[in-house]
């Protein structure tokens, strides 16, 4: 078994192969120079904290070795020979496979007008990116963030904690327009404004120029913004070059079926790099960028590499931390136009239902873990295709879990 990409998904798949009893060779190949690490802390504790930044390791060298997983760090798979069933490694060498998993993740979407990400410009995906950005976060310096998505906003919260000035530039009229309901996005915006973050919403960028003293961002309406450093966070694109080179089908990522199989039955794909049809949403093709989904898909791909033939079914789930607030989303809010609000002590949960009353998504925001239980119950209801009582959902003192007994 060969796994390309040693991120959250690839590592989980490698460990799952062993947990499911596979005893043959497992090779895990990762382009980055570190032991596999978690990305979510990069924009949170690692960015905000005082501690010397260190990658948060997913699996130690000992754990990988104990599981008999051969880890090849800092090696890139450059090509797949599908007929000969082997992969070529950069710097020479090849590995034969019976089943191959592509867990190549995603890379930041490039902004065509922006200069190369050296000097005062950065994108944000890796630990090395985090180190470069973090070094800029000092009081008196201004960081401009292009894009009002999760990564930019988590970075903004962490940067304010370190005392840097922040301006966020978003072309659309509101933040988090992909996947987050507007009332929740508004709360997040208000929290950032209270922390001193400046927003320029609804205005496109015309140019980014590096100057001797810093960076100048020119907006479409002619305004100019000066900053010391710019981080571009306008989303991620699936890493598909290897799959494309091997002639595998693509469709917003590496296209896989319900079993996470690509157009080649011996090659699987999982995690941020792939799109798959989701049974809860009439087979709508989804590509998720979620830490938990990457793990779930990794484990499922491992099972299917061993012949289990299990279909994806997990409810999409995502979280984000900004300041003391945590946002959690289960399912797909955009699938349900009718909304029931549940509000209590500084937290807000929105349930999204289909016209027939079926719950298809839930999103919540609140301090600490305030919304965690409600979102977890919602996730289970979504998985069951439940039609919960709307009055019960809206009542903050009603224990939602009793709906599970119904």
């Amino acid at each position: 078994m060969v796994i390309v990409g040693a991120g959250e998904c690839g590592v989980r798949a490698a460990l799952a192969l062993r947990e499911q009893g596979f005893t043959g060779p497992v090779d895990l190949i990762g382009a980055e120079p570190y032991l596999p690490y978690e990305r979510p802390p990069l924009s949170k504790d690692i960015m905000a904290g005082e501690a010397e930044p260190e990658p948060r390791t997913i699996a130690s060298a000992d754990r990988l070795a104990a599981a008999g997983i051969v880890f090849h760090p800092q090696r890139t798979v450059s090509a797949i020979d599908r007929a000969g069933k082997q992969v070529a490694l950069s710097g020479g060498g090849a590995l034969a496979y019976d089943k191959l998993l592509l867990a190549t993740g995603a890379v930041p979407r490039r902004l065509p007008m922006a200069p190369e990400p050296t000097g005062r410009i950065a994108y944000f995906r890796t630990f090395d990116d985090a180190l470069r950005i973090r070094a800029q976060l000092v009081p008196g310096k201004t960081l401009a963030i292009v894009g009002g998505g999760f990564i930019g906003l988590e970075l903004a919260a962490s940067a304010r904690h370190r005392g840097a000035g922040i301006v966020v530039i978003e072309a659309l009229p509101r933040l988090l327009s992909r996947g987050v309901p507007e009332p929740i996005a508004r709360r997040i915006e208000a929290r950032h404004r209270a922390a001193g973050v400046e927003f320029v919403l609804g205005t496109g960028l015309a140019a980014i120029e590096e100057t001797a003293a810093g960076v100048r961002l020119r907006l479409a309406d002619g305004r100019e913004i000066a900053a010391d450093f710019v981080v571009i966070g306008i989303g991620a694109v699936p890493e598909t070059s290897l799959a494309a080179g091997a002639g595998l089908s693509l469709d917003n990522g590496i296209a896989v079926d319900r079993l996470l199989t690509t157009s080649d039955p011996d090659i699987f794909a999982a995690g941020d790099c792939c799109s798959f049809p989701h049974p809860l949403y009439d087979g709508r093709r989804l590509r998720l960028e979620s830490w938990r989904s990457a793990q779930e898909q990794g484990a499922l791909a491992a099972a299917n590499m061993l012949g289990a033939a299990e279909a994806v079914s997990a409810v999409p789930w995502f979280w984000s931390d900004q300041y003391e607030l945590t946002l959690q989303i289960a399912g797909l809010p955009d699938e349900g136009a009718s909304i029931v609000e549940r509000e209590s002590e500084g937290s807000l949960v929105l349930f999204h239902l289909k016209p027939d009353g079926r719950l298809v998504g839930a999103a919540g925001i609140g301090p600490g873990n305030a919304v965690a239980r409600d979102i977890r119950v919602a996730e289970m209801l979504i998985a069951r295709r439940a039609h919960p009582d709307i009055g019960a959902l809206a009542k903050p003192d009603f224990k939602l879990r009793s709906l599970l007994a119904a």
Partner: protein
Amino acid sequence: MPEWIAACATDDIDTEDVIRFDHGTQTFAIYRSPEDRFYATAGMCTHEHTCLADGLVMGDIIECPKHNGRFNYKTGQGKGAPIIDNLKTYPVKVEGGTVFIEA
């Protein structure tokens, strides 16, 4: 030396639920199982130090509210990713409507 500490009243916890209990510098989680028995574990998830009492109890399992790490709260056993380390458990006794833990 561990000693018996009064943690809460039995009525403070619903069946199949959990509450947080702080004692000195330590945080514990006290559980009431569906069979109406009481259990205690360390209060923080071994993955990222999240308060487990904010999570959901289902049968024998407590789920971390943050990243859905799962533990059997009766044994402390972690139930797969992202959990690597098990949860410490503590002996519990109930006397006169009060739940005591030995810690």
